[in-house]
């Protein structure tokens, strides 16, 4: 290489500038390579497609509370009917592969299964049309956002007879009041994972004070972490302050959100880190003693490390966040009948149990209970007792208040 280049040493105007340019291009190349590891940076590139539907935007903007009108009527599919290979876009680590294989064997179609890490990632892809999916798994508030934007198809319940298996309390949620666009998939809670040692120091009762009250937090011998997720951190603070999350957000109570923001800011210096990915492993590894996180993440980490004697997931006495992930069909789906067939397949009693037995999240399927492992049914972190269950709340769609909630989380880190 050296030899080859040295053959043309004469063409060198303004060497330093050339070097600078070469090096800048080099950095750009490296950055581009680094960005390749990170799907988020690809989002702006997907921007042109979003502009395809400006009419939708304008129509939806003034009528914020009204669902967009253009969502089409229910598709005409028979139960179990399929109309092509199914493009299934689901959260990572969220289904037993054997279920997919069983569905393929039963229907004779292929499942093209891809995964995402966040609701927003899924939303961006569906919204831009960069990829077409037949079935997606949005969480509660995302169902609300997507139906308001006209991104979901109305379901045809005639093609989903097994939907009758879903427990009644999941059939009238605030995020889809007429229950037209989703069928519940799995549900869980947001709370606190901790060591039994810390739980004993708290008098055997879990409380948000272990994060937010300086004196109580001082009892923790090790470190503390919180989710890196604005709606979750703000909701936890609201719960500690005695607010109802649904009241605050539905009534657009900015003062309460700011109060929660101040509390988060005061808490910041006590935290080891914010983490939404490895919080469970960090807990069982001893990196932290107290972690704010999602029920299933803790259940999986505690199971894998066999740490049942030492670590536990709890829902604080003040109550916590409840969330539901749901199955829904995007507005631009190609194989609508196949999507209905998959929803019907996964709401079958035994298949629904197999989902939960693999994910360790709660099942919304009432008919599945006999098939679910006892250790899951008896785990209060997965199936909380009624009095705790009554203190769980959804995080509603926040509209413009979402920006303030994001700002409060950012401000805490300033």
């Amino acid at each position: 290489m050296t030899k080859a280049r040295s053959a043309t040493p004469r063409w060198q105007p303004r060497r330093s500038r050339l070097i600078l340019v070469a090096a800048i291009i080099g950095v750009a190349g490296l950055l581009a390579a680094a960005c390749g590891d990170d799907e988020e940076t690809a989002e702006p590139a997907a921007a042109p497609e979003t502009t395809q539907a400006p009419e939708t935007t304008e129509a939806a903007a003034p009528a914020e509370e009204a669902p967009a009108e253009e969502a089409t009527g229910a598709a005409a599919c028979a139960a179990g009917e399929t109309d092509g290979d199914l493009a299934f876009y689901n959260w990572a680590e969220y289904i037993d592969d054997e279920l997919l294989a069983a569905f393929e064997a039963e229907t004779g179609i292929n499942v093209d299964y891809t995964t995402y890490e966040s609701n927003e990632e899924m939303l961006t892809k569906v919204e831009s049309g960069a990829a077409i999916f037949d079935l997606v798994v949005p969480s509660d508030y995302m169902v609300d956002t997507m139906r308001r934007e006209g991104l979901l198809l109305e379901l045809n319940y005639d093609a989903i007879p097994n939907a009758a298996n879903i427990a009644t309390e999941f059939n009238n949620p605030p995020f889809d009041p007429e229950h037209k666009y989703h069928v519940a998939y799995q549900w869980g809670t947001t709370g606190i994972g901790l060591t039994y040692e810390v739980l004993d120091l708290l008098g055997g009762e879990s409380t948000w004070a272990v994060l937010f009250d300086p004196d109580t937090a001082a009892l923790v011998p090790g470190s503390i972490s919180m989710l890196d997720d604005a709606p979750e951190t703000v909701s936890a603070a609201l719960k500690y302050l005695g607010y109802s999350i649904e009241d605050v957000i539905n009534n657009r109570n900015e003062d309460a959100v700011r109060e929660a923001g101040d509390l988060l800011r005061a808490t910041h210096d006590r935290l080891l880190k914010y983490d939404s990915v490895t919080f469970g492993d960090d807990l069982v590894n001893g990196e932290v003693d107290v972690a704010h996180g999602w029920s299933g993440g803790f259940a999986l980490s505690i199971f894998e490390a066999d740490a049942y004697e030492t670590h536990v997931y709890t829902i604080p006495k003040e109550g916590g966040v409840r969330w539901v992930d749901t199955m829904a069909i995007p507005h631009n789906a190609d194989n609508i009948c196949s999507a209905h067939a998959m929803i019907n397949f996964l709401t079958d009693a035994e298949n629904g149990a197999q989902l939960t037995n693999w994910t360790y999240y709660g099942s919304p399927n009432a008919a599945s209970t006999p098939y679910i492992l006892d250790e899951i049914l008896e785990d209060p972190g997965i199936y909380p007792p009624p009095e705790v269950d009554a203190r769980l709340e959804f995080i509603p769609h926040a509209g413009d208040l979402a920006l303030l909630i994001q700002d409060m989380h950012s401000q805490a880190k300033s």
Partner: protein
Amino acid sequence: MGPARRSSPTAGAAGEEAAALARRRQGMLLASPGALYLLIFFVAPLGLISVYSFATRTSTGRTSLSGWNVESYRALGDDIIVGIIGRSAWLATLTTVLCVVVGYPFAYYIATRPRHVRAVLLVMVMIPFWTNALVRVFAIRFLLGSNGPASALSESLGFGTFRILFTPTAVTIGMVYSFLTFMVLPLYVALERMDWSLTEAARDLYASGAKAFWKVTLPLTRSGIVAGCVLVFVPSFGSYVVPDILGGAKTLLVGSYIARQFRDARNWPLGAALSVLLIVAMLVAVALNQRSGSGAEDGSRPRNRRRGPDQGEAETVTAVAS
């Protein structure tokens, strides 16, 4: 910009013009693939970002391309954002200064070795860059962790365990490590093609070693320092993988904040406006550096007359770096 070919006085003016035209055509032809690529993948997205920065976010988070306004730019004056930009600038400056301090002696050492040793050393500098950046950052995370080797070493030496992971210190260490090569390579190039006889002359005229360095070596390698600083400062200012992984997402920098606007807050107009602000600021900074850099080059700096394989090697280095 072609080679300064001396035309013989007998050659016709017309012929020379035609040759110049042909050269220009050839140049355009050679440049067109790159230009096209940049147009599609750099200029067009940049244009889109600037368009989005004047758009409106609907209450469901969609970006509405109607009702153009400058609200997003006004929001940039917000205390939170100003604080984040200030912190990012400080951390990027610190990283750049540390890179100069660490990188200069390093580059000096390499540049003053015999040529075959230099080649080996340069390859060693570049080997880490053939590994995925994310993998390297996670390796540092392990290294600095409370159960990691650094902590174990400190404990065995009787200093007790230490905790620097998830602090700004860890972020700085990670950034210096990530970007040091961008400093070393341009510095090496500048030092390597410096005319050492000038320092010898300074020494002959009774300058001390330190004085010769300050008065001769440092000014002669100024373009390398400037290039290195730009190369380190720009990416560290926008860095967001390192602060998130090594800082435990506790130190919110501008790169993470922009990513957050696009992803979590779904506030594309604000994210776009902040991106535009940063891009413009960077362009201005680079342009100013370029101007001062080239001024120094044309004026005070004696041109290096040495020609030969060594310079080819210097060129190869930058080529490999890219």
